[in-house]
């Protein structure tokens, strides 16, 4: 008896994409199409009408799944706003958008990159090397890596030389906006020490989103004051807010590991990147790890104190290369117990048991897909089952509420703006599991070129068919 042919090796747990998954994929691509400007993707047509630094990185990660070319352009245009000192500003302004469409706009920042682009002067978490590497994995392109590597290297050199403010390997942020999670309760304590002058400028965000979902006026006044002080100091040195943030530093470390991989492709030396990645992980453990709380915490670099509040930022170090297994296990336990990851809820940005928890206000409780994605990536190695569940929750959120900016972690209700760029992009990335993609390709192998069959009909007369193509 002939044994049945052995099926090709395929992961058995992965099914054909369901109609539901296809629906999410199509919806996500429609959002990215609508937010594409020809050179980059706006996070939101109304609320955020310019190019944002870490948004573009997350969007590139998702764009790699449907148009690697757009993903490469997304990153290259962002680095078109890079300064001579290497910093990648958190906003590159679109000159065609009116000054009053977003506050603080170009007139506030008064900064111009060497390329001529008007920009802000602060930075955001350095996800970019990671994004560049993911884009390369989706569609290998050494030329792209050759072009972006020196820019990424300069970005990291800026952080290393200008932002290591405590003598350790860790870098500091000088504005809550630089954390990417500006309204988080973690910043309440250090922010309270900043004088809050009366704000003269008019906020633009409240025209698009309910005030109950955005930072308060008092905090917005403080944000503006810190930014103005940093600007007036020539965008150098310290401000009234100097903090070592676990999310920012975890991404800084993960990005060094990604730079090492990129360096190997572009014939540069990966060793310094690997060494720095190790040193960053070590410094994170020494300076920000709280063994009793089982979470990483931010440190006020002005006072040297560990800040009292926790947030999802403290779980993101799961993506750190070389994180000891016992620390990773503690982080998973914290994610499950304090952030309720096992209960089928979305991953909140702030622990629901915390005193400052608000399920719908900007970074004070709602779930965001970028932090969820970072924790998911970190969980892949530590707890794949939990990673899978988190991925399913991400997809459920966008299926039920659309590609909203953030979500109530318990009810899944959407908040902030709609058609939000990274929510669409990261849902695409979660959908496009590499194993699943491999399976798609298997189904698309073209038929081999066969032989012509016998003639069965009338003969076409010579000259019957024009061969003139309209061009």
């Amino acid at each position: 008896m002939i044994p049945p042919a052995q099926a090709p090796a395929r992961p058995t747990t992965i099914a054909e994409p369901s109609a539901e998954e296809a629906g999410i994929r199509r919806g996500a691509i429609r959002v990215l199409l609508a937010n594409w400007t020809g050179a980059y993707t706006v996070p939101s047509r109304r609320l955020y009408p310019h190019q944002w630094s870490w948004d573009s990185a997350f969007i590139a990660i998702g764009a790699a799944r449907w148009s690697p070319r757009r993903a490469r352009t997304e990153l290259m245009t962002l680095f078109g706003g890079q300064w001579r000192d290497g910093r990648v500003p958190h906003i590159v302004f679109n000159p065609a958008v009116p000054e009053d469409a977003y506050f603080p706009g170009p007139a506030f920042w008064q900064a111009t990159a060497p390329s001529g682009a008007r920009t802000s002067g602060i930075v955001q978490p350095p996800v970019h090397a990671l994004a560049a590497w993911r884009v390369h994995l989706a569609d290998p392109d050494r030329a792209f890596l050759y072009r972006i590597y020196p820019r990424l290297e300069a970005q990291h050199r800026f952080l290393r030389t200008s932002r290591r403010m405590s003598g350790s390997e860790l870098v500091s942020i000088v504005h809550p906006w630089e954390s990417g999670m500006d309204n988080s309760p973690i910043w309440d304590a250090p922010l309270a020490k900043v004088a809050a002058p009366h704000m003269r400028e008019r906020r633009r965000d409240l025209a698009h989103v309910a005030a109950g979902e955005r930072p308060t006026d008092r905090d917005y006044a403080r944000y503006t004051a810190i930014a103005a002080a940093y600007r007036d100091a020539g965008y150098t040195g310290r401000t009234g807010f100097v903090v070592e943030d676990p999310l920012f530093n975890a991404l800084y470390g993960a990005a060094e590991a990604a730079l090492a991989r990129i360096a190997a492709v572009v014939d540069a030396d990966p060793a310094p990147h690997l060494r720095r990645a190790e040193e960053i992980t070590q410094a994170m453990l020494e300076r920000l790890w709280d063994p009793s709380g089982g979470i990483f915490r931010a440190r006020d670099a002005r006072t040297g104190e560990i800040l009292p509040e926790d947030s999802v930022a403290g779980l993101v170090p799961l993506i750190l290369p070389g994180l000891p297994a016992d620390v990773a296990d503690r982080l998973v336990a914290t994610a499950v117990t304090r952030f309720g990851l096992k209960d089928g809820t979305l991953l909140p940005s702030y622990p629901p048991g915390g005193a400052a928890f608000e399920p719908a206000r900007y970074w004070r409780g709602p779930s965001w897909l970028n932090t969820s994605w970072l924790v998911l990536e970190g969980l892949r190695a530590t707890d794949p089952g939990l990673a899978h569940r988190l991925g399913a929750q991400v997809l459920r959120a966008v299926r039920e509420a659309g590609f909203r900016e953030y979500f109530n972690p318990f009810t899944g209700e959407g908040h902030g703006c709609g058609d939000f760029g990274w929510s669409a992009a990261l849902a695409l990335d979660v959908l496009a599991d590499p194993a699943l993609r491999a399976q798609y390709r298997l189904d698309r192998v073209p038929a081999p070129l066969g032989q012509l069959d016998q003639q069965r009909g009338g003969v076409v007369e010579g000259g019957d068919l024009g061969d003139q193509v309209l061009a």
Partner: protein
Amino acid sequence: MTAMTAMTAMTAKTMRITCQEQLVPGRTLQEKFDFATAAGFDGIELRGKGGRHFESRLCELTRAKADGVVMPTVCVDMPHFIGDFSAELRRDAIDQLRSQLSVIAELGGLGVMTPASWGQFSLRLPPFEPPRPPAEDRAVLLDALTELGEHAAALDVLIMLEPLNRYENHMVNTLAQAVELCRATGLGSVRAVGDTYHMNIEEDDPCSALAEAAPHLAHMQVSESNRHQPGTGHLDWAAHLATLDAIGYHGDLALECRLRGEPETALPQTAAFLRMFL
């Protein structure tokens, strides 16, 4: 199968890839179809010549259909078009298309596509000033499309308007212009065709243009930035085809191009290339 049932049936499937008949070796449509399917295509796009020639092929086409040849669409292949400056030639173009619509309806196909005109005038080439003002261009096209649309509706097939680039036509260059005319007829049987080659010249963002034209888009022709087959130029095929999927397009991708290389190697490569992104 009528056009409407064909459209309904297609919603359950992915996009099909077809190939214009003159690109495929073979003495008969059956031979061409065998070659095309072996090369990875799903069907043939027919070419509709003038002088009632297409009508004269009815016997050949019927036999091909009986032999299982898939040939849902007809691309017009005539010396004059519905937007001609001469009323007489316009009338002839409309009559030819009426006849072609009747034939494709008989074969249970989707419909017939035509540009507004081709090679008649370009606003970018001397003498720059067309003999007819734009308002009259529009009136002429609207009359023709309405007449053809009513005929198509009665037969349950589609008349499809294809924008051409500025050097080949001066009246309808973008999908938005085609969609505007489709809407103006008020007929569901008048639809738009996108051709990736022309779009790469005319559309600011071809992908956004497809998304905006989605409800009126009935057919696609694929060819590269250089008018050769996909994969030989610089179009972002991943983005184009993901966009078509995202907007719920389930029609055909018909290869209309100048073939670089021999069909024996170029056609299988092209089908495999396109399927990579489907």
